[in-house]
């Protein structure tokens, strides 16, 4: 492997890692605080991409599509939380798996009904269409670089919010001991709704950024959902820091696994990595509970 190919693959890996972090952040907080397994998180990723594609088609502006799609996805997340999922926080994980599995079916068909089965076009903004010359003679697509930058900024912002603000303190309190946080006067219901909507918005952001690279189509969120679950489990459920470390690990590991190993092994590499880490630390790298 040449140096420039190595750098390119490394950037690809970090970019995938950043996307995974945006997905896993919502998953891990929702699970950590509300004890809810949300398999429908991938549907929100899909929703973000479709909203962005529609706004893009109407306005022709990708920059305008970003905030609108993120806001709409957060809204959808909030509505689903209030209408359905709220009743399932105290139910068994089996019930949660079933209800979110049912939601996936509903979301997929809703998207088919509204947008059809043909992939919807979503182009990156003009300014980011070309590629950038990096050191060492590496050419890298500007849009992918922008994804990396946005993801890193969001990760930093999220880290700041969670560890240095009052609402972040509520979130952490809720994640480590829900009844105690509630007893000390934290409005846990409100925190639940906020966290779920924020997680949905982040998933939507990840989806709309992935749209121009992959394709905006039904079921696009499911492969990345599985990777995000792996990230969540490796990082330790409920831990933002764990999600960040694990997301980069999985992003880079998956990218290099596919390049360096034979296909049958390369596609299994990250699952092997997960098995090895869990055999060593069953609660993940940064366990939150006990």
């Amino acid at each position, binding site marked *: 492997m040449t140096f420039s190919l190595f750098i390119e693959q490394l950037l690809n890996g970090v970019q995938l890692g950043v996307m995974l972090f945006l997905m896993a952040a919502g998953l891990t907080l929702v699970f950590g605080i509300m004890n809810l397994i949300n*398999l429908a998180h991938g549907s929100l990723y899909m929703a973000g991409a479709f909203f962005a594609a529609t706004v893009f088609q109407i306005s022709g502006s990708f920059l305008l599509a970003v905030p609108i799609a993120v806001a709409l996805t957060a809204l959808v997340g909030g509505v689903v939380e209030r209408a359905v999922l709220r009743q399932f926080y105290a139910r068994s994980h089996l019930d949660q*798996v079933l*209800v979110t599995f049912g939601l996936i079916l509903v979301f997929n*068909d809703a998207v088919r009904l509204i947008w059809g089965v043909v992939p919807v076009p979503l182009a990156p903004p003009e300014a980011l269409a070309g590629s950038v010359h990096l050191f060492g003679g590496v050419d890298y697509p500007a849009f992918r670089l922008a994804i990396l930058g946005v993801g890193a900024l969001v990760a930093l912002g999220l880290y700041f919010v969670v560890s240095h603000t009052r609402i972040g303190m509520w979130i952490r309190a809720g994640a480590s001991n829900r009844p105690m946080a509630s007893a000390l006067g934290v409005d846990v219901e409100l925190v639940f709704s906020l966290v779920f909507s924020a997680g949905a918005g982040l998933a939507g952001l990840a989806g709309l950024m992935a749209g121009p690279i992959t394709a905006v189509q039904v079921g696009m969120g499911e492969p990345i959902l*599985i990777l995000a679950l792996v990230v969540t489990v490796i990082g330790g459920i409920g831990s933002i820091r764990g999600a960040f470390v694990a997301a980069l690990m999985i992003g880079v590991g998956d990218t290099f696994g596919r390049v360096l190993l034979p296909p049958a092994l390369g596609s299994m590499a990250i*699952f092997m990595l997960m*098995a090895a880490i869990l055999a060593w630390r069953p609660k993940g790298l940064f366990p939150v509970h006990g």
Partner: protein
Amino acid sequence: MADTIAKPGGLSVMLRVSWPILLILALLAFAPTLSNALDNPFLVRLFTRAVIFAMAAVALNFVLGFGGLVSLMHGGLAGIGAYAVAIMAFHDYDGSKFLGVFPGTSDLAILIPVAMLAAGLGAALTGIVALRTSGAYFIMITLAFNQMLYYFFVALQQYGGDDGLQILSNLTLAGFDISRRATFYYVALVALCAELFFFSRVVASRFGTILQACAQNERRVTAIGIPPLRYKLAALAISGAAAGLAGALWASGQQFVSPSELSWDRSGDYIVMAVLGGTGRVWGPVLGAVVFVLLEAFLPAWTQFWQAPFGVVVILIVVFLRGGLIDLMGGSLARPTGGGR
């Protein structure tokens, strides 16, 4: 769940609690007759699908309903069984050898044990890792393992990769021809009956009692000196082998297997079938699988967008019908445990 704890042998008790499944099996036995009478060969295929799905869902429910283990990898485990059959039949047709050592075969009398062994081994190996954790971690890890199996078979270019693998040789069962649809259907139905009998005995045995105790309170089980991990691992391996049997029959009936059959939504479907029928009984998932397959076959006739109503049905079941459809048939049969928590 009186029957599941009671000592085996109470024939009258067994008859009293299991009349619905005897009725269902008896009705299923008439599917080929019905298909002939209506001159509709599609019906036999449909019911073959239902019977084989029922086998996978019953296998899943052994760990789900009685062991409290919410596994999302049973689609993958069934897939191992399916690929075991397809790969060995491929080598038989080709005249080559699997891994350069084992000659292929097209006899299900050999293929089925091989498939069950492979799937059971797969369940045990993944189980060693997955069972170190519990609750939500277990669910997510089994889901990840399911995808691992999926990508593994996608990457196997030699055996068709993404496109799947066609079975070109003529499958037999101990020398008998099973290529007729109705014959194959009865083979599957007999296998389902054998599976139901096996699991109802296991659930009623000491092993089954300990497994259920593990689901209810693992700490107490440990406290009385029984190591739960061993029992859960054994249960997962047995369940995996049974799923492998379902997969083997699936591949044989279709003469084809593709990775899409082991994507994770299939695993989710099995959970839906188990819960739809009722997890509190060994045979509950049979009812769930039949209803599932009928809905899947006939909903698309009314509307192109049938998945959404189906998803709503799933959500409503979770909200309202907590004991599954068997609750509607036999009054209040409480679910044994809450599952994942």
